[in-house]
């Protein structure tokens, strides 16, 4: 039994309504734990005054330099005593989940038991970087709690100027759009660079994210410094039975309005069977006895729209791989930037392919570590030095897929033109 609850008239108003209430959850823990009684007291004060009352500090575990988010209360009386003493320390342990956030119930129960024993009982599933957030721990309990979590085979996540916890979509585990083994790619890169997560020494944070297809369900272009996104080079695969089922179920108007006219590059056409064209780059599938849809795959940008609308009838090609984009980040300091293409296509199937991806990630982190200014993200660094300097530093070939359009201004010194043309011809010959 815990001590008596503080009055929380503001928070109480968040217990009604159809959506599950976090306040009700906090109160259930407060019935058992003084730390949660006082956490509710501080949270109610924040609601009353519209102010936050946490400050950071330095709390960690033996052997690591990051992964714990320290929180000390700033709500104190005139003698510097905390107003809510049992929640005066309310730290979070960031723990990396299994790739794809799959769990068995034994594991989740164990987390709940450990957090009953050492923490507030409150676990966030998951944080915006994908961490399991074990919230509400005293300084003294951080180390023993960590040792039990670590003994389960789970490791600390990232915080501060470090490699951060990563995310991958459900991908190959349950999605026909998946173009590579997302979980393997995530574990290959993160586990090979884990030292940079546990011992923060980079200019600023560095995030990897992994999406199995261009639907980009983990938002890797906008939210990660290096995005690995599945794609394919050959023709879209078709399944006639499912294509016919689609038309039967939806009708010709939906096929025209929802599928064909929404193709961003007008790569799809509806044709009478008799007028169907043929060619190596054409995917053709009959939708009824009279009509076929045809896709010119050289015009297709792999946006996923038609595959999304006609699931199974249209599928990614067989020659799968990934596109790599670098430099996505949020607002600070120059404004949000999206990742941009640095590798239009690479295979990601064999042991060597994964090793190549691993090497690329290591090189990009090293380049970032050596060239970014303090508190500068990769996207900002590239904006400052220019993409070409970044590519040359990494020994990556330039490619017209990296730009929306070529330069629109003459403000550049071009006396190296002839040599660059030679390089372009060499690249062409090597391809």
């Amino acid at each position, binding site marked *: 039994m815990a001590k008596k609850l503080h009055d929380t008239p503001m928070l109480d108003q*968040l217990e009604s309504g159809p*959506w599950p209430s976090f306040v009700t959850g906090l109160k259930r823990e407060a019935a058992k734990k003084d730390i949660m009684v006082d956490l509710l007291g501080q949270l109610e004060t924040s609601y009353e005054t519209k102010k936050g009352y946490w400050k950071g500090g330095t709390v960690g575990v033996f052997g690591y330099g990051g992964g714990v988010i320290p929180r000390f209360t700033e709500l104190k009386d005139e003698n510097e005593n905390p107003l809510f003493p049992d929640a005066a320390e309310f730290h979070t342990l960031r723990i990396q989940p299994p790739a794809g956030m*799959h*769990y068995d119930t034994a594991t989740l129960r164990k987390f709940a038991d450990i957090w009953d024993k050492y923490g507030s009982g409150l676990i966030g599933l998951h944080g915006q970087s994908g961490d399991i957030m074990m919230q509400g721990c005293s300084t003294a309990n951080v180390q023993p709690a960590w040792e039990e979590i670590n003994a389960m085979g789970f490791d600390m996540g990232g915080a501060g100027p470090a490699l951060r916890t990563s995310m991958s979509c459900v991908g190959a585990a349950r999605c026909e759009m998946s173009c590579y083994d997302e979980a393997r790619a995530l574990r290959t890169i993160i586990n090979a660079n884990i030292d940079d997560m546990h011992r923060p020494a980079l200019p600023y944070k560095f995030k990897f994210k992994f999406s199995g297809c261009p639907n980009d369900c983990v*938002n890797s*272009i906008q939210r990660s410094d290096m995005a690995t996104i599945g794609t394919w080079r050959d023709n879209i695969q078709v399944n006639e039975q499912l294509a016919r089922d689609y038309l039967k179920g939806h009708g010709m108007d939906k096929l025209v309005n929802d599928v064909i006219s929404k193709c961003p590059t007008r790569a799809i056409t509806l044709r009478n069977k008799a007028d169907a064209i043929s060619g190596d780059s054409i995917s053709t599938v009959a939708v009824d006895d009279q009509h076929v849809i045809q896709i010119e795959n050289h015009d297709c940008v*792999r946006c*996923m729209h038609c595959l999304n609308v006609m*699931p199974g009838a249209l599928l990614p090609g067989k020659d799968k791989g990934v596109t790599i984009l670098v430099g996505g980040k949020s607002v600070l300091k120059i404004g949000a930037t999206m990742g941009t293409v640095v590798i239009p296509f690479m295979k990601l199937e064999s042991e060597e392919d994964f090793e190549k991806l691993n090497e690329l990630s290591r090189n990009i982190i090293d380049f970032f570590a050596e060239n970014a200014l303090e*508190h500068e993200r990769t996207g900002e660094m590239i904006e400052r030095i220019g993409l070409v300097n970044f590519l040359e530093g990494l020994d990556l070939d330039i490619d017209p897929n990296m730009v929306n359009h070529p330069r629109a201004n003459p403000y550049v010194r071009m006396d190296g033109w002839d040599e660059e043309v030679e390089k372009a011809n060499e690249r062409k010959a090597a391809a």
Partner: protein
Amino acid sequence: MAELRAPDECGVPDPMPFMHPTLRENYGKWVFHSHPKPGVLYHRAENGAEVWTVKFGTARQLDGYTIRLLCDLADKHADGHMRFTARSNVEFMLTAESKIEPLIKDLNSHGFPVGGTANSVTMISHTQGFLHCDIPGTDASGVVKALMDELHEEFIKCEMPNRVKISTSCCEINCGGQADIAVIMQHTKPPKINHDLVANVCERPTVVARCPVAAIRPALVNGKPSLEVDEKKCICCGACFPPCPPMAINDPEHSKIAIWVGGKNSNARSKPTFHKLVAAGLPNNLPRWPEVGAVVKKILTVYKADAQPWERMADWIDRIGWPRFFEKTGLPFTKYHIDDWRGSRTTLNASTHIRF
């Protein structure tokens, strides 16, 4: 002091031991999916293996009772496995269609809303807020609870033109991320500096370097080394506050809430887009933020009525144009909607393309 155990630097766990056996056995072999009803997905593998997924919402911040309840339900209905989505929804995988309805009944009886699939308004991606952040202008879980109460019907039904992803962020750093509709704290006054503390708490060159508009400079105030802000230059972004807490940016009255629309991370149809400012100056009105809820619902109502099937918020606005977005939603267009940050010239209309 007791002897400390060196960490086992084991890294990201292999998902295979945790994964539902049907997903594990058919890893990389799926060929088809459909959407039998809101909250339910059907997937088929090339060998004919089938799995039904039931998706439902949670509060994200889970107490021990709720975690154990989820485990009991997963043991009873879903072979003891579950997974979480990037937006904090839970997915139970079922191996027979007949298991769907008993599970949904059980979930609903415990207050878990089933939905969030396809063209619904799914769970709001959000931040830590007053619960755990050291720089929040408002709460996160509370905003989400209040909004999802309002949008509950749109979560459990699939009646939107396409999926709707909402995010909330308790400061302009925008940890909640880009979204079809983003609800973000926007400070409107420069920081109030406690000059007694700056010298002891802040590394001044670092703070100066953080400012995006070079509005901060070192100064001697009342005989103490401190910092001063050129308030004419200041854009009230709050970037100085994390490295220097005495530069108080959060203001109970003047920290307002802004609403942004049209962010899209998917490459489907158009390239990914960032969300754009549409409304601001909304009060930080705890505990239920009714003014924010009203604007979000207004935008959703117009989008729902006006967009074509499969048009995301950004696709819809791209078709109808921004003037009509403001006209249809009744939101005022102000000088603050016209960008003046770097690169802003490309956001201006350099054409005679005007819809009348």
